[in-house]
């Protein structure tokens, strides 16, 4: 497999067109330099220890649902802001899990989502700041042993939820009266990863996933996500943002079959 990912266009990284082949020879091979070339066009990437935090459990308990939290470490007084964060799961068939664009006025400082992890792997978070510089942090995750698998558990149920959306707002204990909000958006979608034809069963499950999600307060961007098959079934985003006083929170999701799902909700008062 060495060198294979280098020739893959970006879209392939997101779609996961190339399935990992035999695993043994790959263990020693570090895919990251190739991914830097493919995803970031070999731009210089600085150490992000002071800029961006990434948290995942060391052991992926359920390979299909591995929680990941991205956290801004910029001090409130910093003139720069995080423009985007790219989440890369190096050894997944689709390494580029998601790219998050953070709304210019929303001050998103924390994003949690859930991903699939196929393998023992480094996971990188690359933040692009408003000055154009890239910063990276990484964690190492052990894929679960046992019979855990990145595929879904209940194929029928997942399809039944297709297109349902939920919005939820959480109280922030730290600053009950501030304009900081913590919210969660859930989208019912199987996010099928797609497979080659199985030679024995002749079964084929085409890739079918949410590839775009836009969240706004009224019409002001809060957070958007460009996603791939590494995002778990029923994509789920939990994040903080600062209210601009908008009355409505809006979500628009698109999937690879061209479905567009839209919904909006009343924003609860701060501190509730």
């Amino acid at each position, binding site marked *: 497999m060495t060198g294979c990912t280098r020739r893959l266009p970006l879209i392939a990284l997101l779609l996961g067109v190339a399935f990992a082949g035999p695993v043994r020879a790959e263990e020693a091979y570090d895919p990251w330099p190739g991914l830097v070339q493919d995803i970031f066009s070999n731009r210089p990437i600085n150490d992000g220890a002071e800029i961006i935090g990434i948290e995942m459990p060391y052991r992926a308990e359920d390979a299909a649902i591995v929680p990941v939290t991205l956290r801004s470490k910029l001090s409130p007084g910093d003139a720069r802001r995080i423009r985007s964060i790219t989440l890369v799961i190096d050894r997944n068939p689709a390494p580029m899990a998601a790219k998050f664009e953070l709304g210019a006025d929303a001050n998103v400082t924390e994003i949690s989502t859930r991903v699939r992890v196929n393998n023992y792997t480094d996971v990188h978070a690359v933040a692009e700041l408003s000055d154009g510089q890239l910063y990276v942090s990484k964690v190492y995750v052990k894929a679960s042993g046992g019979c855990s698998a990145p595929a879904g558990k209940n194929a029928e149920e997942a399809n039944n939820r297709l297109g349902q959306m939920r919005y939820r707002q959480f*109280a922030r204990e730290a600053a009950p009266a501030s304009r900081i909000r913590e919210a969660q958006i859930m989208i019912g979608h199987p996010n099928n990863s797609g*497979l080659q034809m199985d030679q024995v069963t002749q079964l084929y499950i085409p890739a079918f996933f949410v590839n775009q999600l836009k969240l706004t307060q009224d019409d002001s961007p809060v957070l958007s996500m460009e996603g791939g098959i590494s995002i778990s079934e029923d994509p789920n985003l939990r994040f903080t943002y600062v209210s601009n006083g908008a009355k409505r929170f809006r979500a628009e999701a698109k999937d690879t079959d061209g479905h567009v799902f839209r919904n909006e909700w009343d924003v609860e008062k701060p501190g509730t």
Partner: protein
Amino acid sequence: MSHLASTVAALALLGFTTLARAGAAELPVSEVAPGFFVHSGTIALMTRENEGDIANVGFIVGEDAVAVIDTGGSFREGEALLKAVRARTKKPIRYVINTHGHPDHVFGNAAFVADGTSFVGHSKLPQALASRGPYYLDNFKRIMGSELIDPVKIVPPTMLVKDTMTLDLGSRRLTLRAWSAAHSDNDLTVFDEMTRTLFAGDLVFLRHIPVMDGSIRGWLDLLKGLETVPAVRVVPGHGPVTDWPAALSDERRYLATLLADVRASNRKGEPIRSAADNAAATERPHWELFDDYNARNATAAFSEIEWE
């Protein structure tokens, strides 16, 4: 298990695997009811050392033919099970029934591929094997090594059970029932009418913490129907052969506790990782392999009930 007992068990296991390496030993089985043979798997994760032998597997002998139920966690275990069958009967193996698609139950299938042998499973088993099989092979090659996993072939069922199906082994009828999503989304049970013995696969766990890979609410609901099966004993997927339906009480308590805890956690607005760390903590003393599976069960349960 006492320290001495576990040491003895470990030594016995070591002896067994050494023999198996030397050339597929016969898998030890006991006759839990007339003509109904069961091999008890170790309560453990699949490893190179135990050769994937962690699930209960077995076979039932009728007047005309044999049905094998689950085939173990490696090709080698499948071969050893085949030897155990052949040591007891010359009748043809007409059916190989898989209770679901997890590797510890299906990795031995290829040892039974032969003319006249049909593979039987839940109607959703082929899809589960197609989407997970390649991943299982890669993953367990890493864990157990090529020598054990290279000979493993994913063999999907050709006889599919949508609801119920009766197989006749000759004066011996087996009732197969396909269930809705619970332990997995392709669970199948086998009821031997003659001896009123239920082979439950992983719908029933004893001692080994239940593993949830389907639907926690589905599993709890299903137990109401499952316990009405007129059996006198059950062969669980993992754990000892036990009286029926008393065998269900520990599992039901665990699942109900887990469900209540993740619901409470979600109501409080806690993130999924808190649920993974804390749910069903009171159950720890009751189960083996708790730390290997509880957080995973809680993660999966939380993501399911979030949609309530």
